[in-house]
């Protein structure tokens, strides 16, 4: 379980996270929505320990990574898969090596790694592209390779940072379906950060709205469109107008 208690993070004088409290239950998919610059990515990076909070606790399976030493943090980070907004594929190595990167120091044999890479690429509907380099892939394919890389070492948690941003509607739909199918296949706990309301409702059980560095509402996804919370309604209206 992920538990965030009273989390603060600032950059210079700008307060980005202003006392976040949030619990993510085992096996659920929680989506955090919010406008640009509200701190969604910062929250995600703080959860995985890429950013250190100024104050507060991030408790992963009972371990507070905000106060953990480097080795403990590394051990906890291995429980996570992270899909970066711009995929963050290693551009000097091919797709196979990208997906196998997290398995380099595992006890798996070369054959097992090959099998696993093929398997996870098939999970994201990619076949026979192991030899290709990231620069040869489309945006949607890069996203899916990044997803295969994130799940290749069987993480317990997957964090998705804007998984559908920058994709055409059809590819965005494919990625959304992949998130759902991975959730069903791997039974992981997921946090999705997005401002795509449609995708948020489709993939998650609960949706939290982040505004001005605070979680201002948490709703069951099925109730989101009928929420009585003014800020949620305003966000949805704005999202619909943009849509």
């Amino acid at each position: 379980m992920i538990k965030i208690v009273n989390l603060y993070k600032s950059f210079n004088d700008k307060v980005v996270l202003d006392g976040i409290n949030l619990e993510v239950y085992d096996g659920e998919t929680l989506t955090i929505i919010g406008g640009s610059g509200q701190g969604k990515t910062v929250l995600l990076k703080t959860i995985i320990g890429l950013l250190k909070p100024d104050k507060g606790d991030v408790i992963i399976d009972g371990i507070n990574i905000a106060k953990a030493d480097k080795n403990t943090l590394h051990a906890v980070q291995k429980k996570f898969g992270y899909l970066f907004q711009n995929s963050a594929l290693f551009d000097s190595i091919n797709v196979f090596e990208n997906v196998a990167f997290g398995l380099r120091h595992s006890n798996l044999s070369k054959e097992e790694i090959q099998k696993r890479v093929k398997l996870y690429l098939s999970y994201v509907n990619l076949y026979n592209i192991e030899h290709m380099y990231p620069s040869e892939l489309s945006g949607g394919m890069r996203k899916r390779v990044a997803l295969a890389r994130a799940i290749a070492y069987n993480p317990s948690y997957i964090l998705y940072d804007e998984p559908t941003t920058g994709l055409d509607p059809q590819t965005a739909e494919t990625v959304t379906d992949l998130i759902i199918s991975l959730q069903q296949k791997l039974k992981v706990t997921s946090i999705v950060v997005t401002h795509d309301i449609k995708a948020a409702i489709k993939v998650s059980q609960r949706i939290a709205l982040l505004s001005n560095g605070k979680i201002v509402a948490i709703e069951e996804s099925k109730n989101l469109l009928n929420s009585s919370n003014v800020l949620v309604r305003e966000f949805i209206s704005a999202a619909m107008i943009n849509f």
Partner: protein
Amino acid sequence: MKKFTIEFGRYILFCYESFINLFSIYSEREMFFRQIFYIGVGSFTVSILTSFAVGMVLCLQAGIASISVLNEPAYVGTVVSFSLIKELGPMLTAVVLVGRVAAAITAELGSMRVTEQIDAMYTLGTDPIKYLIVPRIAAFTIVVPILTIFSNIVGVIGGGIISIIKFDIPWNIYYRDALDYLYLDDFFHGLIKSIIFGILISTISCYKGFYTEGGAEGVGRATTSCVVVSIVSLLISDYFLSSLLIALGIG
């Protein structure tokens, strides 16, 4: 001043973290050998060409100066070998590597930083210090002295060619001049410097790349800064290193 102090402190911590992870080199040996090849083999030609040219010009200048003072080109080989082995060999090799390799390392690591590839490594259970930084520092530290030795040899040969063509000094005289007054200490003087230069360039270039901020523009800024800081650091440290080594009786 405050900014410089913070930056310098962060650089020292970065070096500390890199050196305490030096033993992780075995698990990242593939990357280490790739870097050896890239830095060493890739820079070999340009490094020896530079040294060859410098050896020739040193011989020419030393010969002309000697003729104007002594009416004969005396001790030309000694001037060339001492200048190259103790001073110019390590310095020139290091400067060539700053331009050819260090700038590229900063740009590569900087691009990886701004495109979140370094963050991605953490999320994949890999410490980028062990995977990216340690192999580069180790490779530099080994390659710079080796390249320096080759540069010294080629530079002395370059001087020898000019001494034969320009001043009619027979090769055996030049060769004896070059080596007779040279002791093992002098050789180690240059070698120790080249090792320190290798550490200096690699840590600066890796540091600048690893902490790049601000997108493509930031990568450009970091690369320029790497070249400037590396060369200035080399020149300043050269004086203090020379003084220290002389005080210790090494050369």
